[in-house]
């Protein structure tokens, strides 16, 4: 038995974060924790590139404790089997307008109200038209609102029956205010020159606070255009695309055709429990997850080449092959690379309608997939060698991370065996269980914080990962004046300094440096719902999935304590969503507080120290 305390540091290399825990282990094996640190993981988890991050975290923990690297007796690394995750999105539906038949955007300020049905005529030809059947006036770019109004008024004065107008510029209210005979006016039609002339068109503007009634109703369209049942069937996607708008234009062109078709997205092939299952991605998340459940334990998965999902699965496989295959054939068995888990989530992507005239967006159905690839070979030994070299300290590879996480979680006040942990990370959600007898099991399932961020990003059409990450991490607020915001829970916060004009009336996230506007036309409630749904579909689903795999007999009721760990357990609402979902199984669930001070962080690193102390000679 050594006659002095040994200084050791446990290091957990995660997909996103590397954490360190420094402790002194006394001769009687009691552990005094001295300091912790965390930093971004450098390189792909489980590869020699991790060394830099390890050194940063170790030095950070030493600095905080006021100790020097020379005093260290050992560095303890987790046995990190590389598990990398990939994400892909496959759109299932697509709305295409093959001929210009509808304008379904929502200009902020349409003019007039009601429904006008007539033949399209350019404003430039209005003075040559004889009185006759009703006409819809189409106004090209560059016309001034007073000139538009006086030209229309002159035609109406001659007896021409102008029943509606469609404008390029943002002038609908200005024009409508100057018409001698009021008609509905739709504006901001960017591609107004593509509106076919000489065709029957319907223009509808709803009263303030209402949405259109006729053009968003299939039979309304049938009535307006005198369609037979077969034509009516074809026009129904138009009605659906226009639902919820305050204004719309539909032009009947002979070849006009909107198709709402299912795109062939290919199949997913799942191999496991002695069978091979094929599932069509277009059937959606529920069917896919059903198949994944039937193929448990999943041995491998392939996607159809040429599809996004096929590409994604091939790419994670290749990345892993590169990562573990670098130093050629090591002694022993050949490298095995397999996809062990897949999570499918139903989502939608706002996509520009092909053939739309005003940049119309339509929500298309999509499936998002997270996959996890792992390998039989760990390269932690080469990481350990490099760390030992750099620090001049013996570096040992300690236990498997899930099992270490449980030990770390047990340092949370109020927690006892049997205990299960859920490590909510960036790429994967990991579960581990330690029973009364000290037996432990651990699993990884695909999909975690990164997938939530990605869903928020695409469903709000942000195309900005950083904004999406902000939305995920903080509650929303609406700027209600230059001096106050209303938080999503209804509370109001005042500011001494006026808020900048670019956030006025916007939905914002409140960062320490001030409100950041979310670039969307959607209201706070919509953004909030997308945020919460994304978290629920990933983390609540995965919590149940992962715990079933570690619970005895797959029965959640056998679990008592569940401790939430990892970066995503810092989230302001994910822990309560999971706790709500598990409450029905009689499970006590809460966010961990490792060492009584670290919150959900540092469980694996402190678990490594605890395991090392317990096993010390």
């Amino acid at each position, binding site marked *: 038995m050594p006659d002095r305390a040994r200084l050791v540091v446990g290091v957990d290399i995660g997909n996103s974060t590397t954490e360190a825990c420094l402790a002194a282990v006394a001769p009687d094996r009691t552990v005094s924790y001295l300091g912790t640190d965390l930093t971004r993981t450098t390189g792909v988890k489980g590869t020699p590139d991790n060394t830099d991050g390890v050194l940063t975290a170790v030095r950070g923990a030493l600095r905080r404790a006021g100790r020097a690297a020379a005093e260290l007796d050992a560095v303890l690394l987790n046995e990190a089997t590389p598990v990398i995750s990939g994400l892909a999105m496959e759109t299932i539906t697509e709305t295409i307008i093959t001929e210009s038949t509808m304008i379904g955007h929502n200009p*902020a*300020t349409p003019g007039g109200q009601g429904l006008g049905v007539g033949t399209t005529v350019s404003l430039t030809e209005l003075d040559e038209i004889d009185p006759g059947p009703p006409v819809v006036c189409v106004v090209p770019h560059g016309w001034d*609102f007073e000139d538009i109004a006086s030209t229309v008024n002159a035609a109406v004065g001659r007896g021409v029956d102008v029943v509606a107008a469609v404008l390029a510029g*943002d*002038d*609908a*209210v*200005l024009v409508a*205010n100057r018409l001698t005979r009021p008609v509905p006016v739709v504006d901001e039609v960017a591609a107004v020159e593509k509106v076919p002339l000489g065709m029957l068109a319907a223009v509808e503007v709803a009263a303030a606070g209402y949405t259109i009634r006729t053009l968003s109703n299939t039979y309304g369209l049938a009535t307006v255009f005198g369609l037979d049942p077969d034509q009516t069937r074809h026009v129904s996607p138009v009605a659906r695309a226009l639902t919820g708008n305050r204004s719309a234009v539909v032009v009947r062109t002979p070849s006009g055709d909107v198709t709402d078709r299912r795109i062939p997205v290919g199949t997913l092939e799942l191999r496991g429990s002695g069978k091979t299952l094929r599932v069509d991605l277009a059937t959606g998340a529920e069917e896919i997850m059903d198949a994944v459940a039937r193929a448990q334990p999943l041995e491998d998965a392939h996607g159809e080449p040429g599809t996004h999902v096929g590409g994604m699965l091939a790419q994670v496989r290749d990345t892993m092959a590169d990562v573990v295959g670098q130093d050629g054939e090591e002694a022993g068995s050949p490298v095995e690379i397999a996809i062990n888990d897949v999570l499918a989530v139903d989502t939608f992507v706002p996509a520009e309608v092909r053939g739309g005239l005003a940049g119309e967006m339509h929500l298309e159905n999509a499936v998002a997939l997270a996959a996890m690839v792992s390998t039989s070979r760990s390269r932690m030994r080469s990481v350990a060698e490099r760390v030992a070299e750099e620090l001049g300290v013996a570096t040992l590879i300690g236990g498997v991370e899930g099992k270490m996480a449980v030990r770390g979680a047990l340092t949370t006040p109020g927690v006892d065996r049997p205990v299960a942990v859920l490590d909510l990370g960036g790429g994967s959600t990991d579960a581990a269980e330690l029973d009364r007898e000290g037996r432990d099991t651990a699993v990884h399932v695909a999909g975690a914080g990164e997938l939530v961020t990605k869903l928020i990003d695409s469903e709000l059409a942000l195309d900005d990962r950083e904004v999406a990450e902000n939305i995920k991490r903080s509650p929303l607020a609406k700027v*209600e*004046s*230059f*001096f106050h915001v209303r938080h999503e829970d209804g509370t109001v916060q005042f500011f001494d300094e*006026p808020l900048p*004009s*670019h956030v*006025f*009336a*916007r939905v914002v996230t409140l960062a320490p440096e001030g409100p950041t*506007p979310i670039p969307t036309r959607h209201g706070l409630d919509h953004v909030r719902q997308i945020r919460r749904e994304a978290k629920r579909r990933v983390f609540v689903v995965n919590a149940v999935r992962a715990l079933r795999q570690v619970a005895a007999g797959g029965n959640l009721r056998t679990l008592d304590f569940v401790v939430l760990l990892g970066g995503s357990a810092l989230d302001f609402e994910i822990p309560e969503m999971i706790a709500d979902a598990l409450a029905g199984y009689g499970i006590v669930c809460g966010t961990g507080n490792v060492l009584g001070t670290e919150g959900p962080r540092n469980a694996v690193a402190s678990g490594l120290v605890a395991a090392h102390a317990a096993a010390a000679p």
Partner: protein
Amino acid sequence: MTHSDPGSRPAVVVHVRPGAPERVLREICAGAEEEGVPTRVVTVPGRSAGEQDGSMRSTGEHDVTALAHAAAASSRLDVGIAVDAVGAAAVHHGKLPAQRPVTTVETDATVADWRRVGRTAARIVKGLPLS
């Protein structure tokens, strides 16, 4: 466009210096009208540089900002616009500090810029994002 009865109707108040370009004023008012918010134009004679020396130069950013703040103070909607003699413009809110206008445009602005000035003023009233 009269201002004989200031208390009559809630409106965005537009203060203009004598000689303010007609087309600038027209587009600004159109910007607010498209948003459905009324404007009330008030001509405010001032000791502007342009009048003093007969030249047509701007009386300065400071003047148009102060003028917009005064316009906002006299608006029942707390929102004001100012246009100076050479067509520089500013939008202001009555509760904001005088030196912190919501937006300003220079004399070399375009039709789209002037429309935006009117639209911005109207959107403050409506509580909608300004851009």
